[in-house]
């Protein structure tokens, strides 16, 4: 995956992201870490095209994220599962494939089952989101993100609302996706997952990319802030 961030500023009531310039090539699993409020989710939303930056441009694989084409290549997994609550796990996927990707019914069904199986949900496919566990719902939402065959999958703290056991369950499922040939950009507080799964780490601090590099930087932080952060999360 190729990533180019140029002159990104983003403001809500205050400046959240401040003059980010960053580029990266040949990494396919990027973790974003940092304290609460440092702008991780904001950066992720901008990179996924869910939100437009106040100024600046982002290109991923040479495609500008505000290009309407771009959305077709993107999957997004929200902090809360964000499945459509009135549809079964399977229908959450087939509806999208049938209506927005114009897939015939049988093919949609087949694809949905394939990804639900991949995330070990074959026994739950006809249940409503409220009738499955948080971990199962979150895995279904990962299956939904995968089902449109995106090149890049964004995950914003997909386990933040889960207890340690469910967290492990979901993250293990994500690690199993390594072989799919997709790129991942994710925010997480689970450092073991970063070390196992990421091939690049971005540490955000006060709206800036404060330190970045291969996961080894977590062992030997160059900056005081990352050092402090590592002490706190351990």
């Amino acid at each position, binding site marked *: 995956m190729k990533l180019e961030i140029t002159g990104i500023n983003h403001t809500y009531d205050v400046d959240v992201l401040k003059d980010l310039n960053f580029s990266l090539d040949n990494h396919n699993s990027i973790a974003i870490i940092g304290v609460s409020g440092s702008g991780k989710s904001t950066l992720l939303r901008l990179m996924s095209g869910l939100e437009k930056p106040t100024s600046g441009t982002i290109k991923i694989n040479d495609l500008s994220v505000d290009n309407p084409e771009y959305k077709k290549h993107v999957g997004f997994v929200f902090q809360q599962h*964000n499945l459509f609550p009135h549809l079964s796990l399977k229908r959450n996927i087939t509806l999208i494939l049938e209506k927005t990707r114009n897939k015939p019914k049988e093919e949609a069904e087949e694809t949905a089952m394939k990804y639900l199986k991949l995330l070990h949900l074959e026994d739950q496919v006809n249940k409503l989101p409220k009738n499955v566990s948080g971990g199962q719902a979150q895995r279904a939402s990962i299956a939904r993100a995968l089902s449109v065959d995106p090149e890049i999958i964004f995950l914003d703290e997909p386990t933040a609302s889960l207890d340690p056991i469910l967290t492990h369950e979901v993250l293990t499922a994500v690690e199993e996706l390594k072989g799919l040939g997709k790129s991942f950009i994710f925010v997480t507080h689970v450092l073991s997952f970063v070390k196992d799964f990421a091939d690049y780490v971005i540490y955000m601090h006060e709206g800036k990319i404060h330190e970045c590099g291969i996961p080894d930087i977590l062992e030997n932080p160059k900056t005081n802030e990352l050092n402090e952060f590592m002490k706190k999360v351990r």
Partner: protein
Amino acid sequence: MVSNSLSLNKLKTIISYIAAIMTVIAFMVFVALRQTDDFSFEPFFPYRNVILNGIKNTIFVSIISLLGSMVLGFILYLLQKSKIKYFNALIDVFTEIIYGTPLLVLIIVTAFLIGPAFNSYNRNLFGVLALIIYMSPYMKNVYKAAFSSISHDQYLAMDLFGFTSFQRYFYIIIPQVIRILMPPLMNNFSLIIKGSALLNLLSYPELFFTIDVAQSRNFAYVEGYILMWGLYLLITIPLSQFTKYIERKLSL
């Protein structure tokens, strides 16, 4: 063992409910027997068709009022959401006034003042209109709650997957809104049924009125009031039980 204690619990619940219902019935029997020696619904037998018609009329106006207030409530909801300040203010003022007005007063004002001002002496029509107007701010709130329960993130997801505007409403928003809407809608229906008793004031032949008329002929006041009360409960209690049932069934 577990299922045993569970069914024991259930039995206790059932017995408690039976006891509670018996208590209420005992109280009513006491009240009735204090005022009459030969309690009997027989004097109402000749009026059964009139009363049955009264029940039908009560249900009929209530359904009309429900549908009317659903439409008017939706218009109010749209005006409240509108970007035009005048409309927002209008809805605020209207809502405050309706909240502050007893239904009885609203019916009288609508049928005896507003109707004639528009050269209409069709009191029944304006009585129903009063019910519709009275319920509309509550309906507006029901819509507001239902639409706002669809989270911002769901809109983001629809955006991301590229749903068209029609698809969003048809497949995602409206099916959810209907589920959320149903229970409060049915609660409002119950309010309307109870409120419609006040239409007797306009001599509209609904349940209250028909029994009232029968009473004035057979002088069986005690039995009449109890019959009236019982018949309203016969409509409203199954409705509220049904509401609870679909609330469980449809909850998301």
